[in-house]
């Protein structure tokens, strides 16, 4: 339903015209077949494990979500209120599909699921996130991750 024509005109205009960083480089990394890849989720939904520090305003760092995290332990602390949260309330997989990745690994469609997943808060200026994202790449490599899926909200 997020065809921009379905949104109120003011919101659609704001979202479509949101200033995005321009990137001159066109990075492109290939890898083995999907059935051999290790997949991690790096969300920008402002996800936080219950009891840990929620995102405050536009924090630029990320939160760690261990693979053992249960559905009743994950919360959204995104600054924006202009997106649906009732889907996530009913089923965390709408935002954070860890259970689905496990099923896909069990079926052999992907190789394995990462030991740790992560979340940023997507309304933050990407320039502020950059050093944290580059540091995160090192952690992902140490977990042998060679496929990252990046869901927003």
């Amino acid at each position, binding site marked *: 339903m997020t065809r921009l024509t379905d949104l109120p005109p003011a919101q659609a205009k704001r979202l479509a015209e949101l200033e995005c960083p321009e990137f001159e480089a066109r990075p492109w990394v290939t890898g083995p077949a999907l059935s051999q890849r290790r997949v991690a989720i790096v969300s920008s939904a402002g996800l936080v494990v219950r009891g840990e520090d929620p995102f405050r305003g536009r924090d630029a760092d990320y939160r760690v979500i261990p693979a053992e995290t249960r559905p009743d332990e994950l919360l959204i602390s995104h600054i924006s209120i202009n997106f649906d949260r009732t889907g996530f309330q009913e089923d965390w997989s709408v935002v954070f*599909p860890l259970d689905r990745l496990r099923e896909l690994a069990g079926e052999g469609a992907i190789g394995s699921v990462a030991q740790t997943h992560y979340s940023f808060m997507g309304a933050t200026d990407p320039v502020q996130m950059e050093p944290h994202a580059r540091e995160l790449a090192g952690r992902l490599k140490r977990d042998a991750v060679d496929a990252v899926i*990046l869901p927003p909200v």
Partner: protein
Amino acid sequence: MSALAHYLEEEGIPTVAISLIRPQTENTKPPRALWVPFELGRPFGPPSDPEFQKRVIMAALRLLERETGPVIIEDFPDDDPRAQPDPAWRPPSTRVAMAAGAADSPALCLEAEILELRGAHQRWVAQHRRTTVGLSGLPIGECARYVADWLRGKAPPSPREGFSAPLILRFAVDDVKAYCLEAAAAGTAKPSSRQLGDWFWNQAAAGAAMHALRAALQASDDERLKLIVSNFMVPATRVPAT
């Protein structure tokens, strides 16, 4: 968040982004993205539909096996079936909600409604084995009291170390919303987000309290508080036209 795709891929990690707002992705040009025609907040589509969700994930992950690129932006073809309203759904009928329009104390109505929704919320938790209430760290009754005290003009201090009063107000409001919307969705009907939002913002005492709080605190001298109540309490689509 296509910028993250650039940073991670530049560091040597293959990425695929889910895109909800196609023009933003077209501007940012990540290596690979799957645009999905779903509502904001639902990047993998319908809740409680594992097969559909899996199709979205696989459509995205398969882009990692493409040999030519960048930039790849593909469209997922199917709409979210849960975006449709469920005519069988009925909003919770609380006495306070019916009286809220006439009442002159939104604070009192808010607290009463939270009490009245307790049974429905317990049914929700039994049904789904989880709740997303918890950002403020306060029990729900204290969340309602904290929000209500602001409505009574008290400017209560933050009850949680390390969190400013405006931030706790924001999280308490989030918790009240989550509690009410979970309670409203308890049961076998599958309401759309719009049905739930229409109830919360147009009929529920909690929604009325948030409209009242926004109106009252927008005149605050505290810039942070003003920012939070103006922009981070009532969704843009639910702010009454002035």
